[in-house]
């Protein structure tokens, strides 16, 4: 994947670059917002990692220009980095159009996990196929395969799995799952969700796909290792 890092702190920028290159990405780095806007207008990046506290043109302005310009280039996910919690809530409010944000300092595994999640989301965005380790879902044909073998999934099991797959390594509340599945008919109780998850587990765990229970909250589909 092609990544652009916009960060004026040289040690941090080089550290991020090396970590993401080690993950197998092609990474460009610029310390200046103006250059980032120019580069993004000329080339397609799969993800931009953007620091808010840049000299001259700051990250907010860069983000605004990235979102305003260049029609027809498709979605370009932006992961915002910030050192100031005062902007924290603005970023959280997503009125900026950022896809995710991180407050400095952060652990590198967390950064790489978020980068993977953003890339996965943008790759599968509208795409017919979702892959998770040995599991493959063809959302058009509504067919699932595990290790290449067809996997039988009831409609609601499918719906629950889709919700979890959209947020791998993120905890998902039972309420969120109920809301996503509610379109499938009558009211669902949290207990019913437990039943579907337990069925999914018995089908997926033999293949090493784990759904973790978060007590009093919901579930998390772990990254496949």
């Amino acid at each position, binding site marked *: 994947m092609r990544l652009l890092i916009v960060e004026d*702190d*040289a*040690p*941090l920028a080089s*550290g*991020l670059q*090396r*970590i993401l290159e*080690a993950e197998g990405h092609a990474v460009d780095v610029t310390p200046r917002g103006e250059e980032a806007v120019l580069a993004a207008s000329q080339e397609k990046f799969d993800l931009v990692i953007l*620091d808010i*506290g840049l000299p001259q043109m700051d990250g907010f302005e860069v983000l605004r220009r990235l979102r305003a310009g260049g029609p027809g280039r498709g979605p370009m996910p932006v992961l915002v*980095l910030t*050192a*100031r*919690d*005062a902007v*924290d*809530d603005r970023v*959280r409010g997503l009125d900026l159009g950022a896809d995710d944000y991180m*407050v*400095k*300092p*952060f*652990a*590198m*595994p*967390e950064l790489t996990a978020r980068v993977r999640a953003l890339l996965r989301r943008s790759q599968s965005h509208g795409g017919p196929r979702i892959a998770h380790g040995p599991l493959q879902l063809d959302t058009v044909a509504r067919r699932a395969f595990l290790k290449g073998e067809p996997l039988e999934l009831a409609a609601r099991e499918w719906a629950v799995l889709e919700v979890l797959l959209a947020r791998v*390594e*993120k*905890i998902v*509340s039972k309420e969120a799952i109920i809301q996503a599945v509610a379109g499938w008919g009558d009211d669902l109780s949290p207990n019913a969700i437990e039943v579907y998850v337990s069925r999914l587990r018995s089908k997926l765990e033999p293949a090493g796909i784990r759904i*973790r229970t*978060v*007590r*009093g*909250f919901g579930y*998390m589909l772990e990254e496949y290792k």
Partner: protein
Amino acid sequence: MAARSLRAHLLRMLLPPIAAALALGAVISYFPTIEPATQAYDQALVDIGLALGSHVRVTQTEYRFELPPAVEQVLRTDRFDRIYYRVMSPAGLEIAGDPGLPSPPSEAVAHNTVYDGNKVRVVSVLAPCGRSTCTVLVAETMVKRERLARDLLLQSILPELLIAAATLLIVWFGVKRGLRPLARLSEEIKARSAGDLRPIDAAGAPEETRPLVGALNGLLDEVSAASRKQQRFLADAAHQLRTPLAGLQAHAELALAQPLPEPSRAQVERVHQATIRTGRLANQLLALARAEPGVRISLAPLDLKSLVEGEADAWVHQALARDIDFGFELEAAQIQGDAFLLREALANLVHNALEYSQRGARVTVRTGRRERAAFIEVEDDGPGIAPAERGRVLERFYRVPGTSGTGSGLGLAIVREIASSHGASIAITDSASGGCRVAITFPHG
């Protein structure tokens, strides 16, 4: 310098002139009344003198004074005083009466002197003796005159004493009453929390206290500006630390991702841990700067349950890394709060719970309402905090002796300050499993 009472000062200033006025008033009203009274008493003596004079008989050879004993007794009788008399011939020779009674100086009719060991008033009366005149001296002791003088003095001074007393009372209570706006002002200031640096409302204050209120407001303004400046500095400093820390952490983790020989690996590992701690410390300083007394926090309606749900993902991942069962019991609880500060308070509580729990331990975050009051609490089944230590762990930089781990001792102090900036209370109790439960309970409403 001893504290000076305005009342005592006023009274000290008022007393000498009041005393002087009192004395002057007494003198002014005493003499005009004592004079006629004295004259009346003198006149009575003169009358006695005249009566005595009429008893002088003149013969060829001598002056004779013939007074029946009954008459003399009548003349000499007085309720209060002893009466003396002396009759002298025109040549000044003794005729009758009390010898040696001193006569007044030549021109005076009456005067005071001493006779027989008593103070006496003497009048001198001329009585016809043939072709010449005899002198009759009549004297009486001063008992009724002095009593009269005393009565007169009392009569004139008593109303003045009452007026003076009234004046002093009026000053005493008037000052208190007059100073009541100041007392109200001090009550208002006393009732304030340490962090309340809003200007005092001058509208209700009387004209005379406006300069004081103005000066106080000026001071409050300066203190609050200084506090804001300090807060800004601390916040800037903490923010400035974050980017280099992120770089440091990135490179430490990069290094650790490579094969490293011992002891280099252990050293880089320590650098990495120190970096993470420093990052936490920067966050804690930021929170302290924000929750510092004197800094007004911005309250907005928020739901504690949503607040926890927003942070839950990061906590669960931290707990998974330590093999801790991290769970939730969340009920909606609306409060007025500062989301950033409450997130930081929670981060500190959760960090402590994770830090002091063993592998396989349970940590639970709860929100909801108890007896109508919204609360948020974090419970673990770690070693707990001994009751004797519970007050002290809320102090800055205090760490329970013998504690392992790498805390700064700031965490719970920050939680306490954030709680108090919300008017919330913090309570440390035992959890059912003997661990520690820290609850923040918010005021009603």
